[in-house]
């Protein structure tokens, strides 16, 4: 629990602020039609029975649920931000299986219910920084991916983890367009995948994941750009060689394998120095590793992050 000790005083949420989070949420919710729709979800808060993990909690106010669920990049359901909320309403998340295979001694297929019971569910409040220079703060629910990976016993030669989304053009109309090479795939180095921050995620704001946010199971890697955090995962493959990800294929000069949040390395077409927090008017400076440098910078010591973007 090294990361616990690294927690700065300023990052610890005061009790009052933590309590006021709900007020903030409630006030935001009651304002407008969005609140009317989202209210039942909030009322059910805690239905996953997740315990807040105080070690993983940023103090920034959380982004209202309504924004989190209506502004999504999930190209399987269309390329506009509003598409997923509209196109994913009938998405079937049960039955759901996740195959874990590759360089492992005990390959396994997990049913969604197995996953929900695999480890204690925690609520963690992470920053999410999109490569498009906007950001949110989201209370996710899940457990470290390493809990799952340990179950399959990775072999010594396993160096990378490939994460693959569902391929189902009937349910995911966006896959009928070759915008990306479907199914969506992303990858991590094994040590990144095993890092305590890497969260296998099944819920947000106390409840199961809304379809548009990657239901029923996704990954969240808070120090990397959002596109690394694969949604609706059906396959996890441990490999010896670095997997080629969907975005690397789509734009090798623009999207690298690492995709660590880095204000010093611009996207070839736009600056990454600042970001607009959803709900804010003025942009704020982007933090190296999205503010998680204390915990993850050591993973990349000695690496040229300009080249390994």
């Amino acid at each position: 629990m090294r990361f616990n000790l690294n927690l700065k005083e300023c990052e610890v949420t005061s009790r009052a602020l933590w309590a006021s989070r709900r007020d903030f949420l409630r006030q935001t919710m009651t304002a407008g039609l969005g609140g009317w729709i989202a209210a039942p979800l909030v009322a059910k808060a805690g239905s996953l029975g997740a315990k807040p993990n105080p070690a993983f909690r940023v103090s920034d106010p959380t982004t209202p649920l309504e924004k989190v669920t209506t502004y999504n990049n999930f190209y399987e359901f269309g390329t506009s931000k509003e598409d997923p909320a509209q196109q994913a309403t009938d998405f079937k998340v049960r039955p759901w299986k996740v195959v874990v295979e590759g360089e492992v001694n005990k390959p396994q297929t997990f049913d969604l219910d197995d996953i929900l019971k695999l480890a204690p569910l925690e609520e963690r409040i992470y920053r999410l920084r999109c490569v498009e220079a906007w950001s949110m703060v989201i209370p996710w629910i899940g457990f470290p991916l390493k809990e799952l990976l340990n179950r399959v016993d990775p072999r010594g030669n396993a160096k990378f983890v490939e994460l693959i989304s569902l391929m189902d053009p009937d349910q995911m109309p966006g896959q009928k367009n070759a915008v990306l090479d479907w199914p969506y795939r992303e990858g991590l180095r094994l040590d990144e995948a095993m890092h305590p921050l890497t969260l296998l995620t099944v819920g947000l704001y106390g409840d199961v994941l809304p379809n548009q946010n990657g239901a029923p199971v996704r990954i969240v890697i808070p120090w990397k750009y959002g596109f690394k955090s694969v949604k609706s995962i059906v396959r996890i493959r441990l490999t010896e060689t670095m997997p080629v990800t969907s975005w690397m294929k789509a734009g090798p000069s623009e999207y690298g394998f690492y995709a660590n949040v880095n204000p010093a390395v611009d996207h070839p077409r736009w600056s990454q120095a600042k970001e607009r927090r959803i709900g804010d008017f003025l942009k704020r400076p982007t933090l190296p590793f999205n503010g998680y440098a204390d915990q993850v910078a050591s993973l990349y010591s000695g690496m040229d992050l300009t080249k390994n973007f």
Partner: protein
Amino acid sequence: MTQRFGHGMEPNIPSARQRQQPKANRAIVGFKILIFVLALVPMTRLLMNGYLDALGANPVEKILHNTGFWTLSFLMITLWVTPLRSVTGWTFIGRFRRMLGLFAFFYVVLHFLSYLVLDQFFDWPNILKDISKRPYITVGFSAFLILIPLAVTSTDGMMRRLGGKRWRGLHRWVYLAGFAGVVHFWWLVKKDITEPSLFAIAFSVAMIVRVLMKVRKRPSPSLIIPH
């Protein structure tokens, strides 16, 4: 329009055709009012949705994209007027060209102001960096700069002062502005180029028809009329 570009060749009195068709003129005025009102709808919708807080989670992005979209749309419609007039023979649509072009300018000004105030909030160093370093902003900003003298010289007075030939020469820059605008959009989208492609097609067709009309007209120079 023909009359406005006259080099003193045409007498400055209403033509026989115009005198005979007061009704047609009234229809033109009616159409102009209709286009004017319709052209303000996108801005009105933005203002209304802004007031109702209905611009989504990222209102700044929405305003930027929307004003950009309508700038390009009005630019394309404007560029379509002349080819459409040539192909269909509907000479009257030329009477709407200036207003449509000015609405393209109106929306590009809103687009630029949104970038300046809402997106950058007068962060001049960063704006200069954007313009010099980001190709899509460089071309977009160039297109905006091109449109400024065109809007300024759009009045009857300026047409007279410049003279038809010079005025037309200056206003041919709108082709470059249209091209730069489409490139600006093409280069900024992350992956889905559907919308930029549609604008690219609209632009290309308008230009191809222009070239074809010019080639067809060349054998009989007497038919070349200013437009």
